[in-house]
């Protein structure tokens, strides 16, 4: 079980994530890259701001990755999450999983990002021309 989990305000580097995840034992690698989209529900987004409860976020991501290793025959898993202010087109999150066979890589990668979005204490504020809102805070 080889994992690399980082939460940091520095820009994410896709290539170094891919360099880390590749190995001679792997046949398939799935990489999910989240990017800041220029609209949400039809409204123009200027930028996003991410805040994390870092210690707990790392602990929760570790739990998710551990579950992925229990559920699928995967070799390495990487989760890098950015904090701070991000402009449109920038990358808040990268999840990468390598496995001998591609099905496990796809399924574990999807599981990790889906669960991360449900349980990991990281918050996103959308900043518009006319105001800002913490995503999902209100019903």
């Amino acid at each position, binding site marked *: 079980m080889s994992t690399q989990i980082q939460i940091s305000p520095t820009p994410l580097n896709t290539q170094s994530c891919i360099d880390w995840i590749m190995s001679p034992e792997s046949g398939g690698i799935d990489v999910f890259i989240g990017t800041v989209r220029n609209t949400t529900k039809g409204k123009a987004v200027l930028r996003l701001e991410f805040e994390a*409860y870092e210690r707990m976020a790392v602990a929760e991501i570790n739990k998710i990755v551990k579950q992925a290793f229990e559920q699928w025959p995967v070799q390495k898993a990487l989760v890098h999450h950015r904090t701070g202010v991000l402009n449109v087109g920038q990358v808040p999150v990268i999840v990468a999983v390598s496995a001998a066979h591609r099905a496990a890589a796809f399924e574990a990668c999807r599981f990790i990002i889906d669960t991360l979005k449900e349980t990991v*204490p990281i918050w996103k*504020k959308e900043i518009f021309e006319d105001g800002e809102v*913490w995503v999902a*805070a209100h019903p």
Partner: protein
Amino acid sequence: MKIKVLAFGISKDIFGSSSISLELANDATVYNLQYVLERQYPRLQQLASYMVAVNNEYALPGDTIHERDEIAIIPPVSGG
């Protein structure tokens, strides 16, 4: 006992601070903490939901809080 409560995201806006101090009974539960907080900060009740973390783990309403525990308010998460 006096406890410190960390706040993130919208709960930081509601508290007006990234942490607040509270006085709680020695055998207080997470439920008791929420009761005290919601009286003091009624906007917490307008959230879609929120959780309490104790020592970096999601806690249940019946869990007891101890002095020096790290308590945090976790509004609906939206990372990724």
